[in-house]
Protein backbone atom coordinates (compact mmCIF):
# COMPACT_ATOMS: atom_id res chain seq x y z
CA UNK A 1 0.00 0.00 0.00
CA UNK A 2 1.22 3.43 -0.91
CA UNK A 3 0.38 5.66 2.02
CA UNK A 4 1.93 8.60 0.22
CA UNK A 5 -0.67 8.40 -2.53
CA UNK A 6 -3.48 8.09 0.00
CA UNK A 7 -2.18 11.11 1.88
CA UNK A 8 -1.70 13.20 -1.25
CA UNK A 9 -5.15 12.47 -2.62
CA UNK A 10 -6.80 13.18 0.72
CA UNK A 11 -4.98 16.48 1.11
CA UNK A 12 -5.90 17.34 -2.47
CA UNK A 13 -9.55 16.67 -1.63
CA UNK A 14 -9.61 18.95 1.43
CA UNK A 15 -10.37 22.10 -0.51
CA UNK A 16 -11.12 20.65 -3.91
CA UNK A 17 -14.31 21.44 -5.79
CA UNK A 18 -16.36 18.61 -4.27
CA UNK A 19 -15.85 19.98 -0.75
CA UNK A 20 -16.76 23.41 -2.04
CA UNK A 21 -19.98 22.19 -3.66
CA UNK A 22 -20.98 20.29 -0.54
CA UNK A 23 -20.14 23.21 1.73
CA UNK A 24 -22.34 25.65 -0.18
CA UNK A 25 -25.25 23.21 -0.28
CA UNK A 26 -24.81 22.42 3.41
CA UNK A 27 -24.74 26.11 4.43
CA UNK A 28 -28.13 26.44 2.74
CA UNK A 29 -29.48 23.33 4.43
CA UNK A 30 -28.20 24.66 7.73
CA UNK A 31 -30.28 27.80 7.30
CA UNK A 32 -33.29 25.60 6.54
CA UNK A 33 -32.85 22.82 8.99
CA UNK A 34 -30.24 23.90 11.51
CA UNK A 35 -31.74 27.29 12.25
CA UNK A 36 -35.37 27.10 11.16
CA UNK A 37 -36.12 23.39 11.55
CA UNK A 38 -37.40 23.07 7.96
CA UNK A 39 -36.90 19.54 6.72
CA UNK A 40 -35.84 20.31 3.17
CA UNK A 41 -34.95 17.06 1.40
CA UNK A 42 -34.88 18.74 -1.97
CA UNK A 43 -31.80 20.93 -1.68
CA UNK A 44 -30.54 19.38 -4.90
CA UNK A 45 -33.51 20.96 -6.64
CA UNK A 46 -32.11 24.39 -5.77
CA UNK A 47 -28.67 23.31 -6.94
CA UNK A 48 -30.21 22.14 -10.21
CA UNK A 49 -31.90 25.53 -10.60
CA UNK A 50 -28.52 27.23 -10.24
CA UNK A 51 -26.73 24.81 -12.55
CA UNK A 52 -29.38 24.81 -15.27
CA UNK A 53 -29.78 28.55 -14.83
CA UNK A 54 -26.27 29.19 -16.06
CA UNK A 55 -26.12 26.24 -18.47
CA UNK A 56 -29.44 26.86 -20.23
CA UNK A 57 -29.03 30.61 -19.80
CA UNK A 58 -25.81 30.67 -21.75
CA UNK A 59 -26.45 27.93 -24.29
CA UNK A 60 -30.21 28.05 -24.94
CA UNK A 61 -31.19 31.62 -24.10
CA UNK A 62 -27.78 32.89 -25.23
CA UNK A 63 -27.57 35.27 -22.29
CA UNK A 64 -24.25 36.71 -21.10
CA UNK A 65 -22.65 34.67 -18.31
CA UNK A 66 -23.37 37.21 -15.56
CA UNK A 67 -27.04 37.44 -16.50
CA UNK A 68 -27.24 33.65 -16.45
CA UNK A 69 -25.99 33.69 -12.86
CA UNK A 70 -28.85 36.03 -11.98
CA UNK A 71 -31.20 33.71 -13.84
CA UNK A 72 -30.01 30.79 -11.70
CA UNK A 73 -30.62 32.75 -8.51
CA UNK A 74 -34.02 33.89 -9.75
CA UNK A 75 -34.97 30.29 -10.56
CA UNK A 76 -33.97 29.20 -7.05
CA UNK A 77 -36.07 31.97 -5.52
CA UNK A 78 -38.95 30.97 -7.76
CA UNK A 79 -38.63 27.35 -6.68
CA UNK A 80 -38.61 28.40 -3.02
CA UNK A 81 -41.78 30.41 -3.57
CA UNK A 82 -43.46 27.61 -5.50
CA UNK A 83 -42.63 25.09 -2.80
CA UNK A 84 -43.06 27.36 0.15
CA UNK A 85 -46.34 29.14 -0.45
CA UNK A 86 -48.41 26.00 -0.25
CA UNK A 87 -46.27 23.73 1.93
CA UNK A 88 -44.80 25.77 4.76
CA UNK A 89 -48.02 25.28 6.67
CA UNK A 90 -47.60 21.52 6.55
CA UNK A 91 -46.02 19.19 9.05
CA UNK A 92 -42.27 18.69 8.90
CA UNK A 93 -42.39 15.22 7.36
CA UNK A 94 -44.86 16.35 4.70
CA UNK A 95 -42.50 19.15 3.72
CA UNK A 96 -39.76 16.52 3.45
CA UNK A 97 -41.83 14.44 1.03
CA UNK A 98 -42.89 17.43 -1.05
CA UNK A 99 -39.36 18.76 -1.35
CA UNK A 100 -37.79 15.41 -2.25
CA UNK A 101 -40.55 14.76 -4.78
CA UNK A 102 -40.11 18.17 -6.36
CA UNK A 103 -36.37 17.69 -6.69
CA UNK A 104 -37.03 14.44 -8.52
CA UNK A 105 -39.60 16.15 -10.71
CA UNK A 106 -36.92 18.67 -11.66
CA UNK A 107 -34.34 16.01 -12.44
CA UNK A 108 -36.73 13.78 -14.42
CA UNK A 109 -38.07 16.74 -16.35
CA UNK A 110 -34.59 18.02 -17.12
CA UNK A 111 -33.46 14.64 -18.43
CA UNK A 112 -36.58 13.98 -20.50
CA UNK A 113 -36.42 14.11 -24.26
CA UNK A 114 -39.33 16.56 -24.26
CA UNK A 115 -37.05 19.35 -23.10
CA UNK A 116 -33.88 18.30 -24.86
CA UNK A 117 -33.64 21.66 -26.56
CA UNK A 118 -33.62 23.58 -23.27
CA UNK A 119 -31.87 21.18 -20.91
CA UNK A 120 -29.98 18.81 -23.14
CA UNK A 121 -32.05 15.81 -22.07
CA UNK A 122 -30.29 12.89 -20.42
CA UNK A 123 -26.89 13.91 -21.76
CA UNK A 124 -27.08 17.37 -20.23
CA UNK A 125 -25.44 20.59 -21.33
CA UNK A 126 -21.89 21.84 -21.74
CA UNK A 127 -20.02 24.72 -23.26
CA UNK A 128 -21.30 27.44 -20.94
CA UNK A 129 -18.37 27.86 -18.56
CA UNK A 130 -16.09 29.88 -20.81
CA UNK A 131 -17.63 33.15 -19.67
CA UNK A 132 -16.46 32.30 -16.17
CA UNK A 133 -12.97 31.06 -16.99
CA UNK A 134 -12.39 34.05 -19.24
CA UNK A 135 -12.30 36.07 -16.04
CA UNK A 136 -9.42 33.97 -14.67
CA UNK A 137 -6.62 36.34 -13.69
CA UNK A 138 -4.17 33.51 -12.92
CA UNK A 139 -1.77 32.63 -15.69
CA UNK A 140 -1.24 29.04 -16.80
CA UNK A 141 0.56 26.87 -14.28
CA UNK A 142 0.03 25.09 -11.02
CA UNK A 143 -1.10 26.85 -7.85
CA UNK A 144 -1.28 25.63 -4.29
CA UNK A 145 0.82 23.93 -1.68
CA UNK A 146 2.25 20.44 -2.05
CA UNK A 147 -0.38 17.88 -2.97
CA UNK A 148 -3.08 20.53 -2.75
CA UNK A 149 -2.07 22.05 -6.08
CA UNK A 150 -4.52 22.83 -8.82
CA UNK A 151 -4.30 24.00 -12.40
CA UNK A 152 -5.00 27.62 -13.14
CA UNK A 153 -8.72 27.37 -13.97
CA UNK A 154 -9.46 25.02 -11.10
CA UNK A 155 -7.57 27.29 -8.74
CA UNK A 156 -9.58 30.27 -9.94
CA UNK A 157 -12.83 28.41 -9.32
CA UNK A 158 -11.69 27.38 -5.85
CA UNK A 159 -10.60 30.89 -4.88
CA UNK A 160 -13.91 32.36 -6.03
CA UNK A 161 -15.87 29.49 -4.49
CA UNK A 162 -14.26 29.51 -1.06
CA UNK A 163 -14.53 33.30 -0.95
CA UNK A 164 -18.22 32.80 -1.55
CA UNK A 165 -18.31 30.23 1.27
CA UNK A 166 -16.73 32.78 3.63
CA UNK A 167 -19.16 35.49 2.54
CA UNK A 168 -22.17 33.22 2.93
CA UNK A 169 -20.98 32.11 6.37
CA UNK A 170 -20.49 35.74 7.37
CA UNK A 171 -23.99 36.54 6.19
CA UNK A 172 -25.40 33.63 8.20
CA UNK A 173 -23.38 34.76 11.22
CA UNK A 174 -24.71 38.31 11.03
CA UNK A 175 -28.27 37.21 10.46
CA UNK A 176 -28.36 34.60 13.18
CA UNK A 177 -27.19 36.94 15.91
CA UNK A 178 -29.81 39.48 14.91
CA UNK A 179 -33.44 39.57 16.02
CA UNK A 180 -34.28 38.04 12.62
CA UNK A 181 -32.22 34.97 13.42
CA UNK A 182 -33.76 34.83 16.87
CA UNK A 183 -37.20 34.49 15.31
CA UNK A 184 -35.92 31.64 13.11
CA UNK A 185 -34.45 29.80 16.09
CA UNK A 186 -37.71 30.32 17.93
CA UNK A 187 -39.59 28.75 15.01
CA UNK A 188 -37.21 25.80 15.11
CA UNK A 189 -38.04 25.28 18.78
CA UNK A 190 -41.79 25.75 18.61
CA UNK A 191 -43.51 27.63 15.86
CA UNK A 192 -46.81 27.95 17.72
CA UNK A 193 -45.09 29.76 20.58
CA UNK A 194 -43.54 32.20 18.12
CA UNK A 195 -46.86 32.64 16.37
CA UNK A 196 -48.50 33.42 19.72
CA UNK A 197 -45.96 36.25 20.16
CA UNK A 198 -47.13 37.96 17.01
CA UNK A 199 -44.54 36.81 14.48
CA UNK A 200 -45.55 35.89 10.95
CA UNK A 201 -44.13 32.38 11.11
CA UNK A 202 -44.92 31.42 7.51
CA UNK A 203 -43.27 34.60 6.25
CA UNK A 204 -40.08 33.88 8.17
CA UNK A 205 -40.03 30.28 7.00
CA UNK A 206 -40.35 31.52 3.45
CA UNK A 207 -37.43 33.92 3.87
CA UNK A 208 -35.39 31.08 5.30
CA UNK A 209 -36.34 28.78 2.43
CA UNK A 210 -35.35 31.42 -0.12
CA UNK A 211 -32.04 32.25 1.56
CA UNK A 212 -30.99 28.61 1.92
CA UNK A 213 -32.25 27.91 -1.58
CA UNK A 214 -30.07 30.66 -3.04
CA UNK A 215 -27.08 29.11 -1.27
CA UNK A 216 -28.17 25.85 -2.87
CA UNK A 217 -28.10 27.59 -6.26
CA UNK A 218 -24.55 28.79 -5.50
CA UNK A 219 -23.59 25.18 -4.96
CA UNK A 220 -25.17 24.37 -8.30
CA UNK A 221 -23.05 27.12 -9.92
CA UNK A 222 -19.92 25.59 -8.42
CA UNK A 223 -20.94 22.10 -9.50
CA UNK A 224 -21.71 23.15 -13.07
CA UNK A 225 -18.52 25.22 -13.43
CA UNK A 226 -16.30 22.56 -11.86
CA UNK A 227 -17.48 20.01 -14.42
CA UNK A 228 -17.98 22.58 -17.19
CA UNK A 229 -21.16 20.61 -17.80
CA UNK A 230 -24.52 19.79 -16.26
CA UNK A 231 -25.61 16.14 -16.14
CA UNK A 232 -29.16 15.63 -14.87
CA UNK A 233 -28.33 12.44 -13.01
CA UNK A 234 -25.80 14.25 -10.87
CA UNK A 235 -28.76 16.06 -9.37
CA UNK A 236 -30.42 13.04 -7.77
CA UNK A 237 -31.54 12.73 -4.17
CA UNK A 238 -28.17 11.46 -2.97
CA UNK A 239 -26.71 14.97 -3.43
CA UNK A 240 -29.13 16.33 -0.83
CA UNK A 241 -28.37 13.58 1.65
CA UNK A 242 -24.63 13.98 1.27
CA UNK A 243 -25.01 17.65 2.11
CA UNK A 244 -27.30 16.68 4.96
CA UNK A 245 -24.72 14.27 6.37
CA UNK A 246 -21.99 16.91 6.04
CA UNK A 247 -24.10 19.48 7.87
CA UNK A 248 -24.97 17.12 10.71
CA UNK A 249 -21.35 15.99 10.99
CA UNK A 250 -20.18 19.55 11.46
CA UNK A 251 -23.09 20.47 13.68
CA UNK A 252 -26.47 21.78 12.58
CA UNK A 253 -27.25 25.25 13.83
CA UNK A 254 -23.59 26.35 13.95
CA UNK A 255 -22.26 28.87 11.47
CA UNK A 256 -19.05 26.96 10.85
CA UNK A 257 -20.68 23.50 11.13
CA UNK A 258 -21.63 22.89 7.51
CA UNK A 259 -18.31 24.19 6.16
CA UNK A 260 -16.12 22.10 8.43
CA UNK A 261 -18.51 19.19 8.05
CA UNK A 262 -18.32 19.34 4.25
CA UNK A 263 -14.51 19.50 4.19
CA UNK A 264 -14.11 16.69 6.71
CA UNK A 265 -16.78 14.52 5.20
CA UNK A 266 -15.59 14.82 1.61
CA UNK A 267 -12.00 14.22 2.71
CA UNK A 268 -13.10 11.20 4.74
CA UNK A 269 -14.84 9.77 1.68
CA UNK A 270 -11.77 10.27 -0.48
CA UNK A 271 -9.54 8.85 2.23
CA UNK A 272 -11.63 5.71 2.62
CA UNK A 273 -11.93 5.28 -1.10
CA UNK A 274 -8.19 5.57 -1.63
CA UNK A 275 -7.35 3.31 1.29
CA UNK A 276 -9.62 0.70 -0.28
CA UNK A 277 -8.14 1.22 -3.73
CA UNK A 278 -4.62 0.85 -2.39
CA UNK A 279 -5.53 -2.12 -0.21
CA UNK A 280 -7.24 -3.71 -3.17
CA UNK A 281 -4.20 -3.05 -5.35
CA UNK A 282 -1.96 -4.60 -2.75
CA UNK A 283 -4.18 -7.69 -2.67
CA UNK A 284 -5.36 -7.31 0.93
CA UNK A 285 -9.01 -7.50 -0.07
CA UNK A 286 -10.32 -10.46 -2.03
CA UNK A 287 -12.90 -10.08 -4.78
CA UNK A 288 -15.42 -12.01 -2.72
CA UNK A 289 -15.40 -9.25 -0.12
CA UNK A 290 -15.18 -6.30 -2.43
CA UNK A 291 -14.44 -6.03 -6.12
CA UNK A 292 -12.60 -3.08 -7.59
CA UNK A 293 -15.70 -1.71 -9.26
CA UNK A 294 -17.55 -1.54 -5.96
CA UNK A 295 -15.21 0.80 -4.14
CA UNK A 296 -17.27 3.76 -5.34
CA UNK A 297 -20.35 2.26 -3.74
CA UNK A 298 -18.55 1.94 -0.40
CA UNK A 299 -18.61 5.73 -0.25
CA UNK A 300 -22.38 5.70 -0.16
CA UNK A 301 -22.51 2.93 2.43
CA UNK A 302 -20.29 5.21 4.48
CA UNK A 303 -22.66 8.14 3.96
CA UNK A 304 -25.44 5.98 5.34
CA UNK A 305 -23.42 4.74 8.30
CA UNK A 306 -22.29 8.27 9.19
CA UNK A 307 -25.86 9.58 8.99
CA UNK A 308 -27.20 6.78 11.18
CA UNK A 309 -24.41 6.88 13.72
CA UNK A 310 -24.52 10.67 14.05
CA UNK A 311 -28.26 10.81 14.47
CA UNK A 312 -28.17 8.07 17.07
CA UNK A 313 -25.07 8.89 19.05
CA UNK A 314 -24.12 12.49 18.35
CA UNK A 315 -26.94 14.46 16.76
CA UNK A 316 -25.27 17.73 17.66
CA UNK A 317 -22.37 16.83 15.34
CA UNK A 318 -18.69 17.29 16.06
CA UNK A 319 -18.83 20.91 17.12
CA UNK A 320 -22.41 21.32 18.25
CA UNK A 321 -23.32 22.15 21.78
CA UNK A 322 -25.48 19.37 23.13
CA UNK A 323 -27.58 21.86 25.00
CA UNK A 324 -28.25 23.81 21.86
CA UNK A 325 -28.48 21.14 19.23
CA UNK A 326 -31.15 21.42 16.62
CA UNK A 327 -32.19 17.82 16.80
CA UNK A 328 -33.38 16.65 20.11
CA UNK A 329 -32.11 13.17 20.76
CA UNK A 330 -33.27 12.94 24.33
Amino acid at each position, binding site marked *: MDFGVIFDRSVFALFADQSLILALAAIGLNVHFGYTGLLNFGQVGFAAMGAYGIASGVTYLELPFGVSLLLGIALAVLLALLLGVPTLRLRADYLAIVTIASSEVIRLTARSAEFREQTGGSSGLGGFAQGFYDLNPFGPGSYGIGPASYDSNRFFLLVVGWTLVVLCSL*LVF*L*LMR*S*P*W*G*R*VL*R*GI*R*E*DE*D*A*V*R*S*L*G*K*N*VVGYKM*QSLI*LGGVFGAFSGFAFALANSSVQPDNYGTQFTFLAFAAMILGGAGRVIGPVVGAILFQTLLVLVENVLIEAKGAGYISDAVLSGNDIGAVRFVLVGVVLMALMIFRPQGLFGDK*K*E*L*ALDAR
Partner: protein
Amino acid sequence: MPADVTKTGAGAAALAGLEARPGVPKPDPILVADGVVRRFGGLTAVEVDHLEVQRGVITALIGPNGAGKTTFFNLLTGFDKPDEGTWAFEGKDLAGVPAYRVARRGMVRTFQLTKALSKMTVLDNMRLGATGQRGESFFRALVPGVWSGQQRGIDERARDLLVRFKLDAKASDFAGSLSGGQRKLLEMARALMVEPTLVMLDEPMAGVNPALTQSLLGHVKDLREQGMTVLFVEHDMDMVRDISDWVVVMAQGRVVAEGPPDVVMADPAVIDAYLGAHHDAPLSAEEEQAQLSAAEAELEGGHA
Protein backbone atom coordinates in the same frame (compact mmCIF):
# COMPACT_ATOMS: atom_id res chain seq x y z
CA MET B 1 -70.78 41.05 46.98
CA PRO B 2 -70.11 44.68 47.72
CA ALA B 3 -67.14 43.64 49.89
CA ASP B 4 -65.29 42.33 46.86
CA VAL B 5 -65.69 45.48 44.86
CA THR B 6 -62.97 47.46 46.52
CA LYS B 7 -60.61 44.51 46.30
CA THR B 8 -61.10 43.76 42.63
CA GLY B 9 -61.50 47.19 41.15
CA ALA B 10 -63.90 48.99 38.92
CA GLY B 11 -64.22 46.28 36.29
CA ALA B 12 -65.58 43.83 38.78
CA ALA B 13 -67.91 46.45 40.18
CA ALA B 14 -69.48 46.76 36.76
CA LEU B 15 -70.30 43.08 36.87
CA ALA B 16 -72.17 43.38 40.15
CA GLY B 17 -75.84 42.81 39.74
CA LEU B 18 -75.55 41.18 36.34
CA GLU B 19 -77.84 38.27 35.77
CA ALA B 20 -76.03 34.92 36.03
CA ARG B 21 -77.14 33.26 32.81
CA PRO B 22 -75.22 32.04 29.73
CA GLY B 23 -74.64 34.74 27.16
CA VAL B 24 -75.51 37.63 29.42
CA PRO B 25 -74.42 41.01 27.93
CA LYS B 26 -71.63 42.85 29.80
CA PRO B 27 -71.36 46.60 30.22
CA ASP B 28 -67.92 46.87 28.58
CA PRO B 29 -67.01 43.70 26.69
CA ILE B 30 -63.50 43.41 25.23
CA LEU B 31 -64.25 40.13 23.46
CA VAL B 32 -67.57 39.01 21.99
CA ALA B 33 -68.16 35.61 20.39
CA ASP B 34 -71.22 34.68 18.36
CA GLY B 35 -72.28 31.25 17.13
CA VAL B 36 -68.77 29.78 17.13
CA VAL B 37 -68.94 26.13 16.08
CA ARG B 38 -66.12 23.67 15.56
CA ARG B 39 -66.69 20.05 14.54
CA PHE B 40 -64.22 17.17 14.29
CA GLY B 41 -65.66 14.56 12.01
CA GLY B 42 -69.12 14.07 13.45
CA LEU B 43 -68.23 15.35 16.90
CA THR B 44 -69.12 18.91 17.78
CA ALA B 45 -66.31 20.11 20.02
CA VAL B 46 -67.41 23.70 20.43
CA GLU B 47 -70.80 25.33 19.97
CA VAL B 48 -70.87 28.70 21.73
CA ASP B 49 -73.98 30.76 20.95
CA HIS B 50 -72.97 33.99 22.58
CA LEU B 51 -70.29 34.98 25.04
CA GLU B 52 -68.96 38.33 26.20
CA VAL B 53 -65.80 38.88 28.23
CA GLN B 54 -65.74 41.98 30.41
CA ARG B 55 -62.78 44.34 30.16
CA GLY B 56 -60.42 44.71 33.10
CA VAL B 57 -61.49 41.65 35.06
CA ILE B 58 -60.33 38.08 35.50
CA THR B 59 -62.68 35.62 33.84
CA ALA B 60 -62.28 31.89 34.43
CA LEU B 61 -63.33 29.30 31.86
CA ILE B 62 -64.07 26.01 33.53
CA GLY B 63 -65.71 22.75 32.58
CA PRO B 64 -65.24 18.99 32.57
CA ASN B 65 -62.64 17.36 30.38
CA GLY B 66 -63.56 17.38 26.72
CA ALA B 67 -65.82 20.38 27.27
CA GLY B 68 -63.99 22.17 24.46
CA LYS B 69 -62.28 24.85 26.53
CA THR B 70 -58.88 24.57 24.86
CA THR B 71 -60.45 24.20 21.42
CA PHE B 72 -62.43 27.38 22.08
CA PHE B 73 -59.19 29.10 23.10
CA ASN B 74 -57.55 27.95 19.88
CA LEU B 75 -60.45 29.26 17.83
CA LEU B 76 -60.48 32.67 19.50
CA THR B 77 -56.72 33.12 19.07
CA GLY B 78 -56.59 32.01 15.44
CA PHE B 79 -54.80 28.71 16.09
CA ASP B 80 -57.75 26.78 14.73
CA LYS B 81 -60.50 27.68 12.33
CA PRO B 82 -64.16 27.25 13.26
CA ASP B 83 -66.76 25.79 10.93
CA GLU B 84 -69.08 28.69 11.71
CA GLY B 85 -69.22 31.81 13.79
CA THR B 86 -67.84 35.29 14.30
CA TRP B 87 -66.03 36.93 17.15
CA ALA B 88 -64.67 40.39 17.74
CA PHE B 89 -61.90 41.80 19.88
CA GLU B 90 -62.12 45.48 20.86
CA GLY B 91 -65.02 45.73 18.46
CA LYS B 92 -63.02 44.48 15.47
CA ASP B 93 -63.88 41.26 13.71
CA LEU B 94 -61.30 38.51 14.29
CA ALA B 95 -62.75 35.74 12.11
CA GLY B 96 -60.12 34.52 9.65
CA VAL B 97 -57.37 36.66 11.16
CA PRO B 98 -54.16 34.59 11.44
CA ALA B 99 -52.86 33.84 14.93
CA TYR B 100 -49.90 36.19 14.72
CA ARG B 101 -52.09 39.16 13.85
CA VAL B 102 -54.42 38.30 16.71
CA ALA B 103 -51.42 38.51 19.02
CA ARG B 104 -50.32 41.84 17.53
CA ARG B 105 -53.76 43.28 18.22
CA GLY B 106 -53.13 42.67 21.89
CA MET B 107 -54.75 39.30 22.52
CA VAL B 108 -51.94 37.02 23.64
CA ARG B 109 -52.22 33.45 24.82
CA THR B 110 -50.15 30.88 26.64
CA PHE B 111 -50.35 27.13 26.20
CA GLN B 112 -51.52 24.23 28.28
CA LEU B 113 -48.25 22.39 27.68
CA THR B 114 -45.70 25.11 28.18
CA LYS B 115 -43.91 26.22 25.07
CA ALA B 116 -40.72 27.64 26.54
CA LEU B 117 -38.19 27.70 23.68
CA SER B 118 -35.88 25.41 25.55
CA LYS B 119 -32.73 25.79 23.43
CA MET B 120 -32.77 29.55 23.67
CA THR B 121 -31.80 31.53 26.72
CA VAL B 122 -34.40 32.94 29.05
CA LEU B 123 -33.48 36.46 27.89
CA ASP B 124 -33.81 35.49 24.21
CA ASN B 125 -37.22 34.02 24.99
CA MET B 126 -38.22 37.37 26.43
CA ARG B 127 -36.75 39.40 23.58
CA LEU B 128 -38.76 37.35 21.12
CA GLY B 129 -41.93 38.67 22.74
CA ALA B 130 -41.26 42.31 21.86
CA THR B 131 -43.22 43.46 18.83
CA GLY B 132 -42.26 45.90 16.10
CA GLN B 133 -38.55 45.07 16.25
CA ARG B 134 -36.58 46.69 13.43
CA GLY B 135 -33.99 43.91 13.49
CA GLU B 136 -36.63 41.33 12.69
CA SER B 137 -36.68 42.38 9.06
CA PHE B 138 -34.20 40.55 6.88
CA PHE B 139 -32.25 43.44 5.42
CA ARG B 140 -32.20 45.64 8.50
CA ALA B 141 -31.00 42.66 10.52
CA LEU B 142 -27.73 42.87 8.60
CA VAL B 143 -26.91 46.30 10.00
CA PRO B 144 -26.68 45.98 13.78
CA GLY B 145 -26.63 49.77 14.18
CA VAL B 146 -30.23 49.94 13.00
CA TRP B 147 -31.61 47.73 15.73
CA SER B 148 -29.13 47.68 18.60
CA GLY B 149 -30.54 50.81 20.25
CA GLN B 150 -34.07 49.44 20.20
CA GLN B 151 -32.73 46.14 21.48
CA ARG B 152 -31.26 47.85 24.55
CA GLY B 153 -34.69 49.22 25.41
CA ILE B 154 -36.22 45.78 24.93
CA ASP B 155 -33.56 44.22 27.13
CA GLU B 156 -34.32 46.71 29.86
CA ARG B 157 -38.01 45.92 29.75
CA ALA B 158 -37.26 42.19 29.68
CA ARG B 159 -35.00 42.41 32.71
CA ASP B 160 -37.59 44.40 34.66
CA LEU B 161 -40.17 41.72 33.95
CA LEU B 162 -37.72 38.96 34.84
CA VAL B 163 -37.07 40.65 38.17
CA ARG B 164 -40.77 40.81 38.79
CA PHE B 165 -41.14 37.12 37.98
CA LYS B 166 -38.00 36.29 39.98
CA LEU B 167 -36.27 34.86 36.92
CA ASP B 168 -33.56 37.52 36.62
CA ALA B 169 -30.90 35.17 37.99
CA LYS B 170 -31.67 32.76 35.15
CA ALA B 171 -31.56 35.31 32.31
CA SER B 172 -28.63 33.72 30.50
CA ASP B 173 -29.60 30.08 31.19
CA PHE B 174 -31.26 27.94 28.55
CA ALA B 175 -35.00 27.94 29.08
CA GLY B 176 -34.87 24.15 28.97
CA SER B 177 -33.05 24.13 32.30
CA LEU B 178 -35.97 25.77 34.14
CA SER B 179 -38.42 23.86 36.33
CA GLY B 180 -42.00 23.37 35.17
CA GLY B 181 -43.28 26.23 37.30
CA GLN B 182 -40.52 28.57 36.19
CA ARG B 183 -41.39 27.79 32.58
CA LYS B 184 -44.99 28.80 33.26
CA LEU B 185 -43.70 32.03 34.75
CA LEU B 186 -41.41 32.61 31.78
CA GLU B 187 -44.23 31.99 29.36
CA MET B 188 -46.40 34.51 31.17
CA ALA B 189 -43.60 37.07 31.33
CA ARG B 190 -42.86 36.52 27.64
CA ALA B 191 -46.51 37.07 26.79
CA LEU B 192 -46.32 40.39 28.65
CA MET B 193 -43.47 41.48 26.39
CA VAL B 194 -46.07 41.69 23.60
CA GLU B 195 -47.84 44.35 25.73
CA PRO B 196 -51.26 42.72 25.51
CA THR B 197 -54.61 44.08 26.58
CA LEU B 198 -56.14 40.60 26.90
CA VAL B 199 -54.07 37.75 28.32
CA MET B 200 -55.39 34.26 27.71
CA LEU B 201 -53.89 31.66 30.01
CA ASP B 202 -54.48 27.99 29.24
CA GLU B 203 -54.24 26.15 32.56
CA PRO B 204 -51.59 28.35 34.15
CA MET B 205 -51.46 26.10 37.23
CA ALA B 206 -51.12 22.72 35.50
CA GLY B 207 -47.97 20.96 36.60
CA VAL B 208 -46.83 23.79 38.87
CA ASN B 209 -45.15 23.02 42.17
CA PRO B 210 -47.57 24.03 44.99
CA ALA B 211 -44.84 26.27 46.44
CA LEU B 212 -45.06 28.41 43.31
CA THR B 213 -48.84 28.49 43.11
CA GLN B 214 -49.28 31.51 45.35
CA SER B 215 -46.70 33.53 43.47
CA LEU B 216 -48.35 32.63 40.14
CA LEU B 217 -51.73 33.65 41.52
CA GLY B 218 -50.23 36.93 42.61
CA HIS B 219 -48.90 37.53 39.11
CA VAL B 220 -52.28 36.85 37.54
CA LYS B 221 -53.91 39.33 39.92
CA ASP B 222 -51.18 41.83 39.12
CA LEU B 223 -52.17 41.70 35.46
CA ARG B 224 -55.61 42.92 36.39
CA GLU B 225 -54.21 45.64 38.62
CA GLN B 226 -52.23 46.87 35.63
CA GLY B 227 -55.39 47.18 33.62
CA MET B 228 -55.15 44.02 31.57
CA THR B 229 -58.03 41.64 31.01
CA VAL B 230 -57.42 37.97 31.84
CA LEU B 231 -59.27 34.96 30.51
CA PHE B 232 -57.99 31.66 31.81
CA VAL B 233 -58.82 27.97 31.63
CA GLU B 234 -58.35 26.17 34.90
CA HIS B 235 -59.15 22.93 36.67
CA ASP B 236 -58.14 24.04 40.14
CA MET B 237 -61.39 25.13 41.77
CA ASP B 238 -59.63 26.82 44.67
CA MET B 239 -57.75 29.03 42.30
CA VAL B 240 -60.88 29.85 40.34
CA ARG B 241 -62.69 30.79 43.52
CA ASP B 242 -59.72 32.75 44.76
CA ILE B 243 -58.91 35.06 41.90
CA SER B 244 -61.69 35.18 39.33
CA ASP B 245 -64.31 37.90 39.11
CA TRP B 246 -66.50 35.99 36.71
CA VAL B 247 -66.76 32.32 35.82
CA VAL B 248 -67.90 30.77 32.55
CA VAL B 249 -68.78 27.08 32.59
CA MET B 250 -68.56 24.96 29.44
CA ALA B 251 -69.82 21.42 28.99
CA GLN B 252 -69.96 19.43 25.79
CA GLY B 253 -68.85 22.44 23.80
CA ARG B 254 -71.56 24.79 25.08
CA VAL B 255 -71.59 27.54 27.66
CA VAL B 256 -73.92 26.10 30.28
CA ALA B 257 -73.58 28.73 32.99
CA GLU B 258 -71.83 31.96 33.86
CA GLY B 259 -71.79 34.31 36.81
CA PRO B 260 -69.78 35.34 39.83
CA PRO B 261 -67.77 32.43 41.34
CA ASP B 262 -69.95 31.94 44.41
CA VAL B 263 -73.15 31.92 42.41
CA VAL B 264 -71.84 29.62 39.70
CA MET B 265 -70.38 27.12 42.08
CA ALA B 266 -73.65 26.88 43.93
CA ASP B 267 -75.62 26.37 40.69
CA PRO B 268 -77.04 22.84 40.69
CA ALA B 269 -76.77 22.66 36.91
CA VAL B 270 -73.05 23.32 37.16
CA ILE B 271 -72.54 20.83 39.95
CA ASP B 272 -74.44 18.33 37.89
CA ALA B 273 -72.63 18.98 34.60
CA TYR B 274 -69.20 19.40 36.03
CA LEU B 275 -68.50 18.71 39.65
CA GLY B 276 -70.96 15.82 39.87
CA ALA B 277 -69.90 13.96 36.79
CA HIS B 278 -66.13 14.30 37.06
CA HIS B 279 -65.40 15.24 40.57
CA ASP B 280 -62.40 12.94 40.75
CA ALA B 281 -58.86 14.11 40.19
CA PRO B 282 -58.53 16.27 37.12
CA LEU B 283 -57.12 14.53 34.09
CA SER B 284 -53.88 15.56 32.47
CA ALA B 285 -53.73 17.25 29.11
CA GLU B 286 -52.78 14.00 27.42
CA GLU B 287 -55.66 12.16 28.98
CA GLU B 288 -58.05 14.84 27.89
CA GLN B 289 -56.64 14.58 24.40
CA ALA B 290 -56.91 10.80 24.54
CA GLN B 291 -60.55 10.90 25.52
CA LEU B 292 -61.36 13.23 22.70
CA SER B 293 -59.61 11.15 20.09
CA ALA B 294 -61.17 7.98 21.47
CA ALA B 295 -64.57 9.55 21.09
CA GLU B 296 -63.61 10.69 17.63
CA ALA B 297 -62.37 7.26 16.64
CA GLU B 298 -65.59 5.74 17.83
CA LEU B 299 -67.59 8.13 15.72
CA GLU B 300 -65.46 7.51 12.68
CA GLY B 301 -65.58 3.77 13.23
CA GLY B 302 -69.34 4.08 13.09
CA HIS B 303 -69.15 5.54 9.60
CA ALA B 304 -66.73 3.02 8.16
